[in-house]
C-alpha cells in the first residue's frame, strides 16, 4: 500500500501525529490477509454442516482480523529488519509513521477481540485454534525461529495453514483428518512458494541478516529443497480423493495442477542462474504457486457444492 499520502509535508510536526487510518490498515498486511480469507472460507464451505450466512461472515471476519493482528504484531517485532529491506522499508513503523507501542496495542486489541468474538459467536474450538494461529505466528515464527534457522519458512508455513483449521472448526466444531490434510497442503505449499520468491530477492534478506535458505545454504540447495517439498506436496493434495474424503473433480484438478507444479519445480532445480534477471523459472513458479492453491481450493469447494 502506498503511504505517500501520509508523509508529513512539514518538518515541525512529529511524523507519528500525522498517521492516518491507512497506516493502521497497512499494519494488517492486507495482501497476506486475502490468502488467509480465501483458504479459511473454502474450508468453511468444504466442512460438513450448515451455518447461518451471517455467522459464516462473522467467522471469516474473525479469521481475517486475527491474521491482521498477527501481521501488526509481526511488524511491531520486526521494525528493525523491515527498515533494512527495500521491500519493507516503507511500512508504517520503519517509516516512523506510527509508534511501536501503537502497533503493539493495535495488534493485541485486534487479536484478543477476534478470538473472543469467534468464541462467543461460533464456538470455542475455532476460537482456540485462532488464538494458537496468532501466537504461533508471533511467538514461534517471528520472535523465536525466523532469525535463528533457515527453516523459518517451513515453520511459517504452519502459521499460514492454521486458518483452514479455524474455518473448518467454525462450521463443524471439530478438526477431523480432512481439516489436517488441508493444513498439510498449505504447510507443504509454503516453502516452494516463498523460496521461489526468496531466490530472486535473496540480496534483500542477506542485507537484513535474516537466515533465509538462499542466504545460508546457497541457491542450488534452495532449488533442491523446492523440488523436494513439491514432490511431497502433490501426493498430499491427492490424498483426499484417495481416502474418499473428496470427489474426483477435486482429485483430477489436484493431479493435473500437481504435475504442472512438479514440472515447474524441476525447471527451477535445473536452473543455475545467479542473477535475478535470469531467474525466469523461479518467477514462473512463484506466480503459478498462487494460481495452484487457488485452483486446488476452488476445486475442493466445487466438488462439495456440485457433488455434495
Amino acid at each position, binding site marked *: 500500500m502506498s503511504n505517500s499520502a*501520509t508523509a*508529513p*509535508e*512539514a518538518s*515541525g*510536526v*512529529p511524523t*507519528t*501525529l*500525522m*498517521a*492516518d*487510518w491507512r497506516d*493502521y490498515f497497512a499494519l494488517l498486511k492486507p495482501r497476506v490477509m486475502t490468502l488467509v480469507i480465501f483458504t479459511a472460507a473454502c474450508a468453511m464451505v468444504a466442512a460438513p454442516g450448515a451455518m*447461518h450466512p*451471517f*455467522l459464516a461472515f*462473522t467467522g471469516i*471476519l474473525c479469521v481475517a482480523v486475527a491474521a491482521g493482528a498477527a501481521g501488526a504484531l509481526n511488524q511491531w517485532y520486526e521494525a528493525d529488519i523491515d527498515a533494512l529491506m527495500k521491500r519493507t522499508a516503507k511500512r508504517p513503523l520503519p517509516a516512523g509513521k506510527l*509508534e511501536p*507501542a*501503537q502497533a503493539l*496495542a493495535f495488534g493485541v486489541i485486534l487479536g484478543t477481540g477476534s478470538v473472543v*468474538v469467534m468464541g*462467543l*459467536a461460533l464456538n470455542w474450538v475455532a476460537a482456540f485454534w485462532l488464538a494458537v494461529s496468532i501466537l504461533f505466528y508471533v511467538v514461534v515464527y517471528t520472535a523465536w525461529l525466523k532469525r535463528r534457522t533457515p527453516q523459518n519458512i517451513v515453520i511459517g508455513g504452519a502459521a499460514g495453514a492454521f486458518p483452514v483449521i479455524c474455518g473448518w472448526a467454525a462450521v463443524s466444531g471439530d478438526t477431523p483428518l480432512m481439516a489436517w490434510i488441508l493444513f498439510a497442503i498449505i504447510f507443504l505449499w509454503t516453502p516452494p512458494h516463498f523460496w521461489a520468491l526468496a531466490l530472486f530477492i535473496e540480496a534483500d534478506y542477506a542485507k537484513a541478516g535474516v537466515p533465509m535458505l538462499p542466504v545460508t545454504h546457497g541457491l542450488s540447495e534452495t532449488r533442491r529443497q523446492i523440488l523436494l517439498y513439491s514432490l511431497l506436496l502433490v501426493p498430499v493434495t491427492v490424498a483426499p480423493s484417495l481416502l474418499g474424503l473428496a470427489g474426483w473433480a477435486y482429485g483430477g484438478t489436484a493431479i493435473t495442477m500437481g504435475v504442472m507444479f512438479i514440472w515447474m519445480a524441476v525447471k527451477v532445480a535445473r536452473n543455475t542462474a545467479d542473477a535475478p534477471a535470469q531467474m525466469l523459472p523461479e518467477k514462473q513458479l512463484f506466480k503459478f504457486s498462487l494460481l495452484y492453491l487457488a485452483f486446488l481450493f476452488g476445486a475442493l469447494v466445487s466438488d462439495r457444492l456440485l457433488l455434495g
Partner: protein
Amino acid sequence: MNAMVMAPEPARWTAEEREAFYARRESRNRALGLVLFALVVLFFGITVVRMAGQAPAVPAGVETGAGPAPAATP
C-alpha cells in the same frame, strides 16, 4: 507510547502543519467511528441469529393446529 512525542503542540506549528494535523486526526476519527458502528451492527446481527437459533420449541399442536382438537364443549 512516548507522551513527550505524542503531545500535540499546535500553537508552535505553522498554519499548514496545523491544518494537516487536524485533517489526519479527523480521518482517523472518522475511520474509528465507522469501525465502532460496524461492531454495533455485527454484535446486533450475532445476537439476533443466535437467539433465533435458540428459540424454544413451540408446543405441538399450537402453531399448526394439526394436533388433537380441543374437546368440544356442549
